[in-house]
């Protein structure tokens, strides 16, 4: 039913595009310019500002290089929005950049959108406080939330390797997150007070007990330990069928937080591994030390927490801005690895296993090894993300690692589109924003603006976040199982179906013990 409707809409769009393309070139340009002039004039009347009309007409030359009429109008409206936000001077700069982009050679065109997105994200701290208020959702997320969003984007891309590429449902991803966070805490805090080992940690008194290692190797170590942990979990469990695997990972995801919770006195031996419900806090701040900082002309901060006395573009740089930029670097690293893996030999093996395990095995793909690599890679990024998040918050608490988080990250992958990095990034950013700020903002908007007669509802919207994710999961799986921004291949699998009977079922089909 839904499929036919979608097909109909697609068909309508196709025929419209065909008709548009059938027009002669000159007519098309004339129509485009005409529409744009009409739009400019309309805008002129809306705001009585001469600027609009002038700017939109200036933009015409640039915009009509874009391929389709609707996109031109969207671009036009976007330009107006940019103008409203930035004011005339910055707008001229944006226009110049846009104009320069039209000269990017064809073979580099595919980099335009990623680089633009990256630049916009990196500059976010500079224009965050100048942004307009979104209806219903309220203000744009602040930089602190931005860091959390980036961390979860990283973890979602990691989970996407397991769920999206290899098609293994992992309901215990939070275990990897916790492993990373606690590894970071062990190597960069006073947790092990009976030893004293300092290695490049910044902003820590050298007489302080405990292990204090510079954060950068700690991130790597956390990733590596988590990857090993993923392999350890994977080796015995990965031969299980999909739903059994899901439940086993869920089991690990439940056991690990309990170990964290009871780890202040492991099995009554007095070994304090995790400091129990109090968590480990504070963690050492990240930084590059004074030597590196001075050598780079104070471009690299010596200590993130005592940062920074610089004011750039009228923006006083705070330590959370620095955390934000390094989180961007981590996300870029993750995305780079994930994208390179996707079409590597290993990545193609994952997709083959996802689509048909039997055929993949018949083609000589080692099932166990390939699946274990998926686990290890996914775990690695989960670990690094968890470690960075712990360092950012300067704490790890066992309450951060409940089953809800696993489902939360899974929800990002599903909403964005399993297997598609862009989709997963968007899904992660959006859901984390909702979790951190969006739901609270929406809730207060609902409570003040929606009323029945004189009765205002008083709903604590963030309280129901789990249920809201539940609704999102169910709706997406029912109506658009490939996610909002699907990978084309995954969409085809969901709509045409795949032969996903696992290998071990073949000779036993239909003998499942019945009730």
């Amino acid at each position: 039913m839904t499929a036919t409707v979608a097909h109909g809409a697609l068909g309508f769009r196709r025929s419209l595009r065909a008709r548009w393309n059938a027009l002669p070139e000159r007519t098309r340009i004339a129509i485009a310019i005409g529409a744009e002039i009409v739009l400019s004039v309309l805008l002129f009347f809306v705001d009585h500002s001469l600027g609009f009309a002038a700017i939109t007409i200036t933009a015409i030359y640039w915009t009509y290089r874009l391929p389709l009429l609707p996109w031109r109008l969207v671009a036009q409206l976007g330009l107006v929005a940019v103008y409203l936000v930035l004011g005339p001077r910055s707008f001229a700069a944006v226009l110049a950049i846009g104009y320069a982009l039209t000269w990017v050679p064809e073979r580099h065109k595919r980099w335009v959108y990623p680089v633009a997105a990256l630049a916009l994200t990196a500059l976010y701290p500079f224009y965050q406080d100048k942004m307009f208020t979104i209806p219903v959702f309220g203000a744009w997320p602040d930089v602190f939330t931005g860091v959390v969003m980036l961390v979860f984007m990283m973890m979602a891309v990691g989970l996407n390797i397991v769920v999206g590429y290899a098609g293994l449902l992992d309901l215990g991803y939070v275990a990897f997150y916790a492993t990373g966070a606690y590894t970071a805490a062990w190597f960069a805090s006073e947790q092990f007070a009976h030893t004293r080992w300092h290695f490049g940690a910044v902003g820590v008194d050298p007489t302080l007990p405990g292990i204090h290692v510079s954060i950068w190797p700690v991130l790597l170590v956390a990733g590596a330990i988590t990857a090993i942990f993923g392999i350890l979990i994977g080796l015995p469990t990965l031969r299980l069928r999909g739903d059994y695997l899901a439940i086993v990972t869920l089991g690990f995801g439940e056991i690990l937080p309990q170990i964290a919770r009871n780890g202040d006195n492991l099995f009554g031996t007095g070994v304090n591994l995790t400091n129990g419900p109090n968590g480990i806090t504070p963690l050492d701040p990240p930084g590059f030390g004074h030597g590196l900082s001075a050598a780079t002309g104070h471009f690299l901060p010596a200590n993130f927490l005592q940062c920074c006395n610089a004011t750039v573009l009228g923006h006083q740089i705070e330590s959370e801005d620095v955390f934000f930029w390094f989180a961007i670097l981590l996300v870029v690293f993750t995305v780079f690895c994930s994208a390179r893996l996707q079409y590597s030999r290993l990545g193609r093996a994952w997709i083959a296993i996802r689509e048909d395990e039997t055929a993949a095995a018949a083609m000589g793909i080692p099932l166990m090894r390939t699946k274990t690599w998926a686990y290890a890679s996914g775990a690695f990024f989960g670990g690094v993300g968890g470690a960075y998040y712990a360092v950012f918050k300067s704490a790890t608490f066992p309450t951060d690692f409940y089953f809800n988080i696993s489902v939360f990250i899974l929800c990002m992958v599903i909403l964005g589109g399993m297997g598609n990095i862009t989709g997963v990034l968007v899904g992660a950013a959006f859901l984390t924003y909702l979790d951190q700020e969006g739901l609270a903002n929406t809730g207060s908007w609902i409570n003040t603006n929606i009323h029945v007669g004189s009765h205002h509802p008083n709903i604590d919207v963030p309280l129901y976040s789990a249920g809201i994710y539940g609704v999102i999961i169910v709706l997406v799986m029912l109506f658009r199982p490939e996610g909002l921004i699907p990978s084309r291949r995954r969409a085809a699998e969901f709509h045409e179906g795949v032969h996903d009977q696992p290998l071990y079922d073949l000779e036993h089909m239909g003998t499942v013990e019945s009730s």
Partner: protein
Amino acid sequence: MLVAAVVLLLIKEFTVSPSQFAQTTLIGVTNGCVYALIALGYTLVYGILELINFAHGDVFMLGGMFAITFGTRFFNMHPGQGIALIPIVLATMILAMAACGAINAGIEFVAYRPLRNAPRLAPLITAIGMSFIIQDIGLAWKGPEYVIAPDVFPHSNVFSVGGVEYPWNHMLVVLITVPVLLLLLYLVQRTRQGKAMRATAQDKDAAAIMGINVNRTISFTFLIAGALAGAAGTLYALWATSVRFDQGFQLGLISFTAAVLGGIGNLPGAVLGAILIGLIQAWNEGLPWHMPGSDWTESIVFGILILILIFRPEGLLGERTPEGG
């Protein structure tokens, strides 16, 4: 090896304090009865659809809330009602069973039926979603605090031998569970509808060719499973005298472990597994000598789950199925 170690440990426990051992064992059996009712729901659904119905535990939780609401609103349930308690509890339980059965069948209709031909993971994912939704329905309905049930079951002892006491409120749970289990067994193994269920579980296409309405049979299975969850919810609420919106998921997972332990898809297996899990939990939490204690119950239960899935995925009573390779 592991089994031998556990047995030795239990013998040691028994010699340390026989009365306490007997006491915790009885508690374990009572626990196990509630788990059995929930585990049967998992097993029924898994047997027919090969789907882990994550929402089942939350339906159980709703069952407890229904029981408290119905019992206090409609039947004026309160402590010290004497013999009049029996019809009141039964009526409450039947209402809760009906409500939960309807909800469970509704979940199947909304979230699982449209995905019958989708990849296997799709309904599993919606099951998690439904679980969260139902939890939040409970939260919106009763709030984030414990919902207190009237403490109606008498606490006087059935027997008290050598310091081992068995109070009536535990006894009643067992007394109500057993006939429900027998009824279910009769339904599945002796009736026409039960035959249809078994046929659908074995091979949906063949069952359809034989004139069985497969979708209706699946709905019926969910209805039965939901009713069992409702019964379990009623007993749990009246016995533990409190229910909270997020308890269902946790207890559901423990019961699912029980179902896997006994051999998923196997009815007697689910009961056996549930009793075992109940005993393990009670021993772990109640025995005096070197037990990890209640802080570790979940870890132990999920550890058992993982070990069973890895080493004996067919469970204790199940036939050798291919999951383990």
